[in-house]
């Protein structure tokens, strides 16, 4: 049902359908919905290094925001998206949004100029934030509904939050990369931010969301579809003979 195509001869994407919408998973982890001219990215976690430092933790290389913005700029340029939707956890917390260095804040404003920009609330950055654009708890458009955390039973739902990551074995060597997860009813986006980890695709957290028909699209150039393995048993479950 999916096919690999070359997006405007520049960017390799993987095309698939979700409840009637024709979507493309991009190598960066962004989602492009061509018919709506909408680019969706999730879990940017801008300002993460600053937040960790503020709390007295390690002083990580303070370059992750520019790295994430550079990726976003490239995806906007290539797709020519008219609408950009940030699917929650765009900032690591509200102080991180306020504390974005001047040049990085300017860069973000530049990206926002001339297009529609939707901020969906996340668990890290609830409530409105200082930048322009529209602030929404969720966003419904045609057959799709965009929200940060997936709800069991939803249909046509696009969400983020879990940072899914696929893990495969290549001739005795393990390879782990962020991935999209989807079935006929829902889609979960990988984390887009530079400093983000992942939750393994067979984590019990995915059990209420996906049945046996689920697939992953592993990031790469081009992204590749894979069958999603069944979830591991939940940690608190006790099996005794």
């Amino acid at each position, binding site marked *: 049902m999916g096919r690999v195509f070359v997006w405007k001869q520049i960017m390799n994407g993987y095309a698939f359908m979700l409840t009637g919408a024709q979507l493309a998973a991009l190598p960066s982890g962004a989602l492009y919905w061509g018919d709506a001219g909408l680019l969706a990215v999730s879990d940017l976690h801008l300002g993460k290094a*600053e937040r960790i430092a503020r709390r007295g*933790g390690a002083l990580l*290389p303070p370059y992750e925001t520019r790295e994430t913005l550079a990726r976003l700029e490239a995806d906007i340029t290539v797709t020519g998206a008219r609408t950009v939707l940030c699917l929650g956890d765009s900032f690591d917390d509200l102080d991180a949004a306020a504390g974005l260095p001047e040049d990085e804040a300017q860069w973000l404003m530049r990206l926002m100029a001339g297009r529609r920009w939707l901020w969906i609330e996340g668990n890290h950055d609830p409530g409105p934030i200082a930048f322009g654009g529209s602030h929404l708890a969720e966003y419904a458009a045609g057959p799709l509904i965009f929200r940060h955390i997936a709800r069991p039973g939803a249909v046509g739902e696009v969400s983020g939050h879990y940072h899914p990551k696929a893990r495969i074995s290549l001739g005795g060597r393990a*390879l782990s990369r962020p991935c999209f997860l989807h079935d006929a009813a829902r889609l979960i986006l990988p984390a887009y931010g530079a400093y983000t980890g992942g939750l393994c695709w067979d984590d019990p957290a995915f059990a209420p969301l996906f049945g046996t028909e689920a697939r992953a699209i592993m990031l790469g150039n081009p992204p590749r579809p*894979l069958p999603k393995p069944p979830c591991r048993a939940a940690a608190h479950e006790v099996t005794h003979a």
Partner: protein
Amino acid sequence: MSNVPPFIDTWFAARGWAMHPHQHEMLERAGAPALLLIAPTGGGKTLAGFLPSLADLGPDPAPGLHTLYISPLKALTADIRRNLRAPVDEMGLSIRIEDRTGDTSHTQRRRQRADPPHILLTTPESLALMLSYEDAPRIFAGLKRVIVDEVHALAESKRGDQLMLGLARLAALCPGLSRVGLSATVEDPPAIGRFLAPAPKACEILQADPGPDPDIAMLETDAPPPWSGGGGRYAIPAILDEVRRHRTTLIFHNTRAQAEIFFHDLWLANDAGLPIGIHHGSLAREAREKVEAAMAEGALRAVVCTGSLDLGIDWGDVDLVIQVGAPKNVKRLVQRIGRANHRYNAPSKALLVPANRFEVVECVAALQAARAHDLDGDPRGPGPRDVLCQHILATAAAGPFDADALYDEVTTAGPYTTLTRPAFDACLDFAATGGYALRAYDRWQRLKRGPDGRWALRDPRAAKQIRMNLGTIVDTETLKVRMQRHRGGAPLGEVEEGFAATLTPGDTFLIGGQIVRYEGLREMTVEVTRSASATPKIATFMGTKFATSTQLSDRILTMFRQPDWPELPRHTAEWLALQRKVSRLPRRERLLIESFPHEGRAHTCVYGFAGRNAQQTLGLLLTQRMEAAGLAPLGFVATDYATLIWGLDPVTDPAPLLDGDNLREAFETWLAGNAVMKRTFRASAIVAGLIERNTPGRRKTGRQATFSSDILYDTLAKYDPGHLMLEITREEAMKGLVDFGRIEAMLARTKGRIDHVPLSRVTPLAAPLFLEPGRVPVTGTAEQRLIDEAAERLMAEAGLA
């Protein structure tokens, strides 16, 4: 005589013992600021270290810490506490002796801080932790002596660097402190002395009588060793004979995986049902303790083991040491032999079992070196700066410090005497601000300068985090292995997380000497069941491979110059003679390269004798250069002595490929994107405090909150290539797995004198390389191709394609 108090004389006399001369000498030289005792195992070395403390403390000592004893092993501190208690009681001294390690209870530790014992036995990590407390000056007030046991072992790792920084701190807190180092036989005692002594003071060295030479030989077997491989399985019948003939035998292997496979095979051949155990670092602590207890009781006839048994735990009745596989390093061999026969003045007995034909040569060379007391060792480089970064943070956790004073203090530590002020300042800047070209953390600096000019933590709560990250041992991420349905039962051991990730249910592998079947992963635990299969599907899970030392390689090259080899078994001597006839034997001052066709591929074999790690790096660099030259290399394999490369087109002129400048340039490019660098970066970043250690409790929850250290490496390489952490990573990688230093040494030694020998067929010396495991394919766009193949296969299997 004046320094020997009567209670010590009386104690020796009551036992009918005479004090060893070196024990007496230790008492005489008790006032030395730094004293290194080199004595063989069984020579009463530890007691010699403590005698001056006992003499000074006397029957009725005043309260307060007097002597600090530091050992690399927790198990050793408990051993020493028991072994020291008896003489102290028998001498009638009311001296409090306690140990303090990661296993010591919280209450006990608090009490020790409030009311320290006279003699405290601890590890470098626990000392670093104690020094990071605000009340360190009070805890250590009055400390007179520090005893560092197994100092030769500590000097081989970052733990030693950390310890010496800790001793520099202690010396500042306790002026007049004297240091004693206890060491097994080492090749360069003055070097260990410089490591130990507080600069610029010198270290006095006391050499005990080394005792008789060990009785050491190569095991003669009916079957000749195979052409390649490392298991030593061919020798199992002969080894079992030896086990039967001795009370207790230790059978050493160079890697854990080899120990596992060998133990399994040994058990299958053990018709007599001799009690035999296995002991290595990947086994669960419970499993190891069981073997240790059985050993102490004399209930085992043999233990198959690795370096985890290298250090001086008292094993009682060991009367034979067998080393399977070439020892790679003569010093390690001699120290292992020391495990046999703890009775002083009785020769230790050891047998070497070469695992393959080439190792026969290596074993003979090692035997000659051991008999000639020609030990090997690479000179110790300057102290690594990731350890210094950690030390600076730990110092700040204890309280505000003055940068000038800390620099002066740090440079009295042996490993850091050559540290320049700018190099120190870079570490201080890293600890304080992160040291980034982008000064992003002005508001959130970790360390701030107070009005008095001293540096202190910005947020005092950070002290706790810093203490949790102390230590220089960085484990690879491992997962526990347990029998399914035995959730309360003892774990079998641990495997690397990366290895666990490659398993699919049904795969079988060896652990703790048994074959188990992988069932699944639960709560970060690998669940397995017993498997009835005779051979594991996947054999290895951890491959610490030592490289043959430079000195041993040189001895082998010297042997190659002989006209014939009466000291070698006939099969091996004939093999070398045939090589000399059809091609040449490698020489030390020249670089032999053979090129020949084989099975439709062009092959080139480079005999660099630079050790496994360097030969591996050489393979990566040469194939990269061959790729650029259009020679279409397909893959290579490396051993301690050679790299064999195969490809589509023959190499006609290897000289430009091996040109030093070109090679160095290729190295720089290659190094940046290399997986070894990322692994080294992770270790250094954890030690330096850039990445927090994964504590077990945290790993379970919110895995998506933590991200891979590779991301930090890539980010730094892209945005801040001059950053201190990348500099440190490079320094560390050069001496470790990449070992470019030995490639440089090989180039310097051969000075472009290349002997290129084109041949029509495989040579005798090259032949075993074809059987060597660990062939590395040359990949360019290989990863995406592999993913594509795997994706198609998996989708097809799932019926989704």
